[in-house]
Structures are given as structure tokens and as C-alpha cells.
């Protein structure tokens, strides 16, 4: 684009481009002008969205395509304004969803979209398309947009007694090698709490803005669009371990040697998800693994009744782990938090500005901007907290804490074909 091109020239150019399509030229240009006003802050995204929603649906539906744009009345301002889940991204995703066999109409829709996008100067257009196409968007997926399913947990640290049953259940269900503790329970002491031992069960946080998916060079680590699960495609992963070094929580466990449980002993149902990708159970050698939030259960492979449950949650007898759809107000994690708060009411009779409950909640290292989908009830460990031996030791439960010991043994005995 030459520098001396005036806005008028631009508009003429887009008008010609839009004229070539079978759709409403005026609508495109009007949207373009208003989009510029949005950029300039003269018009809110919500207003913009509401103004064009009906006309857009009408325009695109005229071609009998399904364009899944949400009803403006059902949309909160927050939903539109958060991250990549805005209106334009959805429009991009909707256009991406147009029947690929219908080349003619697809092309014209894309052309129109591109013209409108060009007029608006939307740099994110290509990104939204790619995110939808690659199924690994950084925000535009079934994650934090308040729509669809978003699997997550509420873990009540006040209830956890450090019995490690969750770790055992996880290890067994996913056929993990010794020391690959997808679920890991910390026992720790903190400053100013004397000898009191606290516990913190740590799964993968299934972050909505997960650093591991961003850095993966091959897209093996990805966010599943339908429910926000952060998974590893074992068929693609090259084992570079960049996800592991980028994760602030240390939840990744690489398969350094041959897995303890051979492939032949694991049913495909537990390994292949509903998209046909190999993401479940323990990883094969040379590939990265981590907590999957029991993706096989969520896909109904273990029966309808197991959907919305995890192995660790099921094993927990202390009512500490609550798994479910964070977008559903009635799901176990939301319900538990609500009820727990209701049971810990604050005395507002004298100080009406106090909040209604005394329950403290946190997400791990929330300031890192990863938007974890696991929230904890209880006190966050301070930087001075130190891990200690809990009432039940890992050894007692047949678990290995420090995996390096297993790996070192394996390295020393490779000639004998040891596994780890």
C-alpha cells in the first residue's frame, strides 16, 4: 500500500472489492467505518456487536449457511471484551466454518470478510482464522469465553488431609511410570504457622492462556476447542520439552525411557479422544505427558456416569477435589465454592461493607497471566513455604517422589533393558 493513499481511496477500493461479492456492500462499508470508531474509542465493542448482529445473521443466513453468532441479548459486555474471544474472532471462526465443499460461496464470503477486515485494519483477522483452523487458539477456544464447557476444578485445601489416594488413583488409571506424578500432593509448612502441615494437591492447571501451547513448535500441546482441556497429541510431539520449561507449575513429566505399562495393556478407548487424537493415558517413549483431566472420562469412554468426574476426585474421600464445568453455575466446583462460602458467612451486622464470607481462594501464580482453570480454597503458600514429609509418605503408597532416582537407576541399568 502506498503511503499517499487517502482514506477515500481506501473506501473506494473496498467498495469495489465488496461489489464483487454477492453481499451487501453498504453493510460492509458501514461496519468498516464503525470499526474505525471502535478503534478510536468512540464506540464500544458491545454497541458495535449489537448494531450489526441481526443484519449479519440475515446476510449470511441468506446463503443457507450456519453462522453461529450468539444472540446479543445473551451476551455480557465482559464476554465480548475479553481477549481473543471477541466478536471479530467469532465472526472469523464462523466464516471459517462455512462448508468447504461449497467453494464458490466460501470464496465470496472469505473475500467479503477480508475486504471488511482490510477496511477495518484488523490485524487479528488472520490470527482468528488460524486459531479456528488449527484448533489451538490462544483464547478463542472453549476456554475463558463463558460459553460451552470449560473443565476445571475447585480444590479445597482445608479439606485435604494428605492421604495421597488421589495420586495413587491417577497413577493407576493413566498407567503412569514411577515418579510421573500427574497428580502431586505437596505437604508443606509455612511461615508463621508453626509445625502445622498444609497440603496442596497439584494437577495440570489447564490454563486458558497456557504458555506450553504457545511455545510448542509443532502444535502437539494444544487446547481442545470443545472444552478447554490442554492436551498433548502423542502422535505429533517431538519431545523437545519446551512445554516443560515454559510451564510455571512443573506439571509435565517426560517419558524418558520405556513406559512401565506397555502399549498392549492399554485400551484404545482410554487413549484416543473424540476427535480421534491420541491424547489419553501415559505417553509413549520420547514424548511429553501430563494430567489430562481424564479426557477419556470426559469423552464418555468410561460410561456416561463418569463424564464430569476425574480419577483423583473419585478417590478423594475428604471432599477436597471438585471437578466440573466452570461455565455451569451448578457444576460441582462452582456449587462447592458457593456452599462453602455460604457456610462461612461474615458478620456484616456491624461492618456492612465486609464481604459476605470469610473464605479465601486463590489460583496458583495467577499474576503470571496464565488464567489457570484450577482454583483453590484455603491459603496460598507463601514464597517461604517449604515442602515437608506428610503424614502419609509417597513410599507407603507405592509412589515415587523424586523421579530422578528412578531415572538414574534406569540409566545405570540400560543394558538390562530397565524401564522408567
Amino acid at each position: 500500500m502506498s503511503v499517499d493513499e487517502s482514506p477515500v481511496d481506501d473506501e473506494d477500493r473496498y467498495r469495489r472489492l465488496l461489489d464483487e461479492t454477492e453481499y451487501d456492500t453498504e453493510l460492509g462499508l458501514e461496519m468498516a467505518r464503525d470499526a474505525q470508531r471502535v478503534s478510536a474509542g468512540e464506540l464500544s465493542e458491545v454497541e458495535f456487536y449489537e448494531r450489526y448482529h441481526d443484519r449479519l445473521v440475515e446476510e449470511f443466513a441468506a446463503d443457507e449457511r450456519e453462522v453461529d453468532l450468539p444472540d446479543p441479548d445473551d451476551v455480557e459486555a465482559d464476554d465480548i471484551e475479553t481477549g481473543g474471544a471477541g466478536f471479530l474472532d467469532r465472526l472469523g471462526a464462523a466464516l471459517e466454518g462455512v462448508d468447504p465443499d461449497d467453494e464458490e460461496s466460501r470464496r465470496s464470503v472469505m473475500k467479503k470478510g477480508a475486504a471488511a477486515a482490510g477496511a477495518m485494519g484488523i490485524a487479528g483477522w488472520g490470527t482468528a482464522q488460524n486459531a479456528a483452523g488449527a484448533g489451538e487458539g490462544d483464547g478463542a477456544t472453549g476456554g475463558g469465553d463463558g460459553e460451552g464447557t470449560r473443565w476445571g476444578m475447585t480444590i479445597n485445601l482445608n479439606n485435604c488431609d494428605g492421604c495421597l489416594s488421589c495420586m495413587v488413583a491417577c497413577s493407576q488409571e493413566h498407567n503412569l511410570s514411577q515418579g510421573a506424578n500427574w497428580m502431586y500432593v505437596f505437604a508443606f509448612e509455612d511461615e508463621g504457622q508453626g509445625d502445622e502441615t498444609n497440603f496442596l494437591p497439584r494437577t495440570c492447571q489447564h490454563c486458558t492462556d497456557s504458555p506450553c501451547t504457545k511455545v510448542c513448535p509443532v502444535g502437539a500441546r494444544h487446547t481442545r476447542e470443545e472444552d478447554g482441556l490442554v492436551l498433548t497429541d502423542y502422535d505429533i510431539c517431538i519431545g523437545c520439552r519446551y512445554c516443560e520449561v515454559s510451564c510455571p507449575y512443573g506439571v509435565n513429566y517426560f517419558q524418558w525411557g520405556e513406559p512401565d505399562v506397555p502399549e498392549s495393556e492399554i485400551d484404545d478407548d482410554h487413549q484416543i479422544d473424540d476427535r480421534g487424537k491420541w491424547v489419553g493415558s501415559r505417553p509413549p517413549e520420547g514424548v511429553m505427558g501430563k494430567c489430562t483431566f481424564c479426557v477419556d472420562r470426559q469423552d464418555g469412554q468410561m460410561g456416561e456416569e463418569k463424564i464430569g468426574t476425574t480419577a483423583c476426585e473419585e478417590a478423594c474421600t475428604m471432599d477436597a477435589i471438585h471437578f466440573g464445568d466452570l461455565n455451569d453455575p451448578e457444576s460441582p466446583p462452582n456449587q462447592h465454592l458457593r456452599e462453602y462460602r455460604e457456610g462461612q458467612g461474615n458478620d456484616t451486622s456491624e461492618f456492612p461493607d465486609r464481604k459476605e464470607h470469610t473464605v479465601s481462594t486463590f489460583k496458583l501464580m495467577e499474576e503470571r497471566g496464565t488464567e489457570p482453570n484450577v482454583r483453590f480454597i484455603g491459603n496460598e503458600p507463601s514464597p517461604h513455604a517449604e515442602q515437608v514429609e506428610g503424614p502419609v509418605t509417597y513410599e507407603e503408597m507405592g509412589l515415587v517422589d523424586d523421579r530422578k532416582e528412578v531415572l538414574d537407576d534406569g540409566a545405570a541399568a540400560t543394558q538390562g533393558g530397565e524401564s522408567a
Partner: protein
Amino acid sequence: MSVDVTSVDRDTLVRPIEAFSKKYLAALAVALGLIGIWLVFYYQQLRHGLIVTNLADWGSGGGVPWGLYIGAFIWWVGIAHGGIILSAAVRLLGMDTYQPVARLAELLTIAALTCAGLFILIHVGRPDRLVTSVIPAWPTRVQWSPLMWDVTVITAYFVLTATYLALTIRYDIHRLRDRLPSLLDPVYSVLMIGYSEREDEIVERMVWWIAFAIIIMAPLLLHGGVIPWLFALLPSMAGWAGGVQGPSFLSIALTSAVSGIIIIAAAFRYAYGWEELIPDAVFRGLSQWLGFFSLIFLWLQLQQVITGIFAAPTTLQHATEVKISTPLYWVAIGLVLLAMLYAFAASLRPDLFSVRAMVALSVGVLVGTLAEKVLFVVEGLQHAHFSLYDGVPGAYVPSATELSALLGTIGIVALFFLVVSKVIPVVELHAIEDDHEEVKP
């Protein structure tokens, strides 16, 4: 300080191609031996997996997932990038003094980049997927993953350097063809496809522009860009994140590369009696550059240490304290410091200078930069912000398998020079014949 080597004749130039000695065979045997040792170990790794290394998971795992392989990868890339920067600078700035070592630097770049690529191959858990996974993912992932930027830029760089070398070799082969072994005629025929003397002038212009591109790319994208970004962009590790990594990596690349060139140039000079072709003045100049780059390296280390201990956040402070209490770190700093002091002292008192001492100090610098880079990777991973794990900081000492890869790659570089010097002149004809036209783009 310009040196005239135009009195040297063409026979001297092609001496490595014609000469054959027991020493050459011995060197060849050593290089092949080093590669052999590595292959034996690597076979074990292929058979049993990365469990044969001393790498492990960070977090509850009590180890580090990246170690010597990644440290050595950065080190080789640094040598490669620094090498080509120097060669490009010679062309762009007309630093004729260094013309006798320009091609050696280009060859070093090719060899070192190959070794860097090898380290990526042996670092990953599934090397068989490097092509099948990376190529289909490229169009979507290159927008996001620093590792993909890395692969992209290094590949582009390799192509650029190889093109550069291939273009400049044609001029020499054409004029020296009668002195080159007829046994290799098929190789020369391929290298000379479509050559005519009319292209010389055009090639000179093209090479100038390639050199220009390299000089621009190097600090922005290569060792001042994508390589440090692999680490600098990750806020989860206290010792890694931050903008100082770009300049710091670049200074290490240049320091290592000058050292590498000093060693290789000295080896050729010693083996083929090239005192006239690569005179002392070249080494004096290179050692001054080494002194200067070492100073910048040390300055950037000082920056990191001071900001890391004065009033840094807890985890960065801890990482820095551990770094400065690690004896190996001070060995690395000491080796670079020593080279710097010697280079500066020899500039003030020229009689202090000896090529032999400079070579020894250059080896020291290479040991130092490798140690610094491995420590950077490992210690960076040992001090995560999330430090509740008892297994953090983890433990790591490279295994025999990992160390063998280092020997193997050194063997590969040696083998590369031994073979290439039998095929093409490793010093360009322009160095001894001043008959080419100055290029004015």
C-alpha cells in the same frame, strides 16, 4: 593495520590440497575416533531413550529437562554466527588484513551450524518426527513458537552461508583448476556449472549484499534474537527472562567465534607452513578483537550479577546467588578475563604476543563460553518461580552419553576441515592476488 600477502604464490595457496602427511592421517584418525565414540553412546540413547542421559523432570522430578545438549547447541550456534559475522564484516568494511581467514570463518560457520543442528536432533525424544511433525506444523506454529522461529532462522542462515560460499568458490576454482586434483573433477564440474568470467563482477555484488543481509540479521534475528528469545521470553524461570540475554548471547557468540577462528587459522598455519599467508599481524588483530568482545562479555555478566543480587525479587536473587557461588562460573569468567588481559597487554607491549599463547587462551575462552552456556541453561531451570517443590533446585551433571556428543561434534568440525581443505582452497585467491575490482554497490 593492513598486511600485504600478495607476494605469496598460488602453490602456497593450494598446498593443503597437494600435500599429504602422516600428521594428516593422524588428525583424520583422531577426528573419526571422536565421532566413533559418540556414535557408540548415541546408539545406546536411540535404543533406550533419553533415560541414558542425566536429564530428568524439573518440579517433583528433582532434575532439569534441558542440559548439556541445549548448552552445546547454543555454543555451536554462537560460534557459527560469530564466524559469519566476522567474514561478512571483512567484505563489507574492506578489512583486507583478515581476508586470509575469511573463508575459514565461513567454513567454520557451516560446520558449527551442522553441529548445532545435530544437537537439536539428539536432544529431542523423537528425532524420527523432526521432519514429519515440523514441516506440516510450520505455517501455523511459526507465529507462536520461539523454537520454530529458531529452526526457521537457522535454516535460512545455513542456506545464506552456503550460497555465499558456493558463489565465492567458483572464482577460485576457475583460476586454480590446473592445480586441483583431477580425481575430484566431477565435484568441480558440479561446483562450476554454468560459470563464465562475466559472472565475477555480478557475484561480487551479490556477495556484498548477502554479507550485508548477514550483518543485519545477526544481531536482530540470530544470536542477538531468536536464540536468546528461547529463554528470555519465558517468565517462569527467574534466571532466563529478561532483555539482557540478547546482547549477552551476541557477545558470547563473537567471543567464541574469534577464538575458534584463531585456533583453526593457527592449525592450518602450523600444518602447512603458512607463516607468509597468515602472518602474525592477522593473529594480533584477531586477538585485539577477542579482547574487545571479551570485555563486552564480562560487562554484560557484571550487569546480570549486579541486578540479580542488589534488590532483585526472591527467586532471581536466589538464582544469582547460586550462580556466583558456583566455582565453574568463576572458572568460565576467569578464562575469558585472562584472554582479555593478555590481548590488551600484548597490544601495549607487542613483544609479549605469541600465536601459541593466543591459541591456548582461545581454547580457554571456548571452554569458558561453553561452561557459561551450560550453566545458564541448567541453573536457569533450577530456579523456577514456583519453588514449593523439595526437588527444586534439581541436580544435574552431564552423563557420559551427553559428554560424548560434545567430543563427537568437535570431531565432526575437525573432519569437515580435513576433508574440505583437500577439495577447495581454504584461503581465497583474492587474499594473495589483488587483481579483483573493488565492489561499489
